[in-house]
């Protein structure tokens, strides 16, 4: 097993954990955490891909990850602001079940 392969697998597992967190936990903060976990998984996957071939680091996935990190932090910051306001308005730290 190569290093890249190892991290590829780790990324897959991380994604699974993130998705499980999204599905199984309902607290808003936990969900935001889970989204971030998922994001980290994607980034890890990309970084691993960049390192697959020996002696060569692909800069394109790196650029994607860097961009992705900024997007992720932006989204997280906004999501947290929204969650705080939602909590302030409703006193709820999770979304009600009834959808639609």
């Amino acid at each position, binding site marked *: 097993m190569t290093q890249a392969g190892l991290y590829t697998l780790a990324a897959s597992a991380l994604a699974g954990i993130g998705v499980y967190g999204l599905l199984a936990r309902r607290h808003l903060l936990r969900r935001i955490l889970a989204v971030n976990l998922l994001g980290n998984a994607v980034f890890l996957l990309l970084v691993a891909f960049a390192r697959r071939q020996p002696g060569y680091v692909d800069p394109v996935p790196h650029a994607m990850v860097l961009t992705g990190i900024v*997007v992720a932090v932006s989204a997280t910051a906004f999501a947290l602001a*929204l969650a705080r306001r939602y909590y302030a308005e409703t006193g709820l730290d999770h979304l009600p079940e009834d959808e*639609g």
Partner: protein
Amino acid sequence: MAELGALSLPLAFFLPLLTALAAFLLGARQAPWLAGIGALATVAAVADAVRRVAAHGPQAYHLGGWAPPLGVELYADGLAALMLAMTAAVALAVTAYAGAYLHGQGQAAERFWPLWLVQWAALNGTFLSADLFNLYVMLELVTLTAVPLVAMAGDRASLGAAMRYLLLALIASLAYLLGVALLYGGTGTLHLREVGELAGAGGPTAVAAALVTAGLLLKAAIFPLHAWLAPAHSSAPAPASAALSALVAQAGVYLVLRLWLWAFPALLSPVVGWGLGGLGAASVLYGSLQALRQSRLKPVIAYSTVAQLGYPLLLLPLAAVPAAASQAWQGAAYFIVAHGLAKAGAFLAAGNVYYSLGHDRLAGLRGLAPELSASVLALGLAWVSLMGLPPTAGFLAKWQLLSGALAGGQWPWAVVVVLGGLLAAGYGFRVLATAHAAAPPGGPVGRPARRLPWRMAATPLLLALAVYLLGVSAVPALRLLGQGAPEALG
């Protein structure tokens, strides 16, 4: 190397973006006229792009002069041009409408303008970009502009809707990105058409396609991933609702079609086609049935969006049937255009109702028609297109889809199309009948408290009339659509 001639492609992204920045810089007071100028400039750029595509075929623009796969390509074929044009029309209307709608609401206005203009830029970017990762960034941009618009009312319902929307949209984006990562890992390129050529139909590609599609279907609110849409779209202020339903959600559908027809055509087996088409059909039926059950105007319209977004997916099972492909393709594309214009008109008209009465409960709309005749007329006119009745663009689109389905011998889709139209008529007339009803004794509940500015009255009407203009003949638009269409669909 880039052709200078097609500068209108990047301009379609940059002009609204810069306008947004200027609007933010100069504050709410200057924003409306700035937005107006920016909108006009953008429309001019879009018009130029459309003209070029119509005259010379698909236009490509390599940003920075870097050809793919190295650089990002902006690519305008007929479909993209059509979407750009539709977006321009809707955006122009939204801009004009919002100026009046937000007049006097300092804070809301200050926040609305930059968000909205960036959204427009991002939408144009979404339609133009031929780069999978760039599309991700654009989609995030769209999402992050859309959610604050939903939350703008700041009440419990809108905040909850926004929260749910945001979480799901983020998951969708990440699913998409995960798929894109796999695709890059397999092909070494992010360029849409190159991916199409290199990806093949192997298992990893299928997983990637599934992830990408799942993300986009979530953004497009396709059944069963639809639940977020109605609360979100009905909570937003009217101009934002219009943009969300007519443009943002449709961008997801657009990308589904774009990706399946350009990037994963090899994967589009009958089973996959029928599966996606089945989801579309389920959306049509489920959304319509839900719309029938709503007790407020904007949720009705929002659920109608869920239903209408399902139609274009019916193309996917038909795309592989030679007898059906061309017509279904035209129908699906024209459907997006028709739905965009009509839905924007409907939401803006609903906004007028809300603006005047301060509520949009159907039960409280009895006897409303005389008071808001232009708006109700606009609502009615727009709805005719949503029902797919002549002489509207919606009808022509539905006709093409129907003809395609019948010509391809896949009559279940025809049944869905017809049934969907009937259901749309059902929920549409439920609203219109209420508005036409005589006022209850003692006058309508909640007489108009506010006079409607003429711009707000006129905008939805103009949008609705545009649908009729496109209903007179679809030939020019479809000729445009033919530019750069995949061979199987030409």
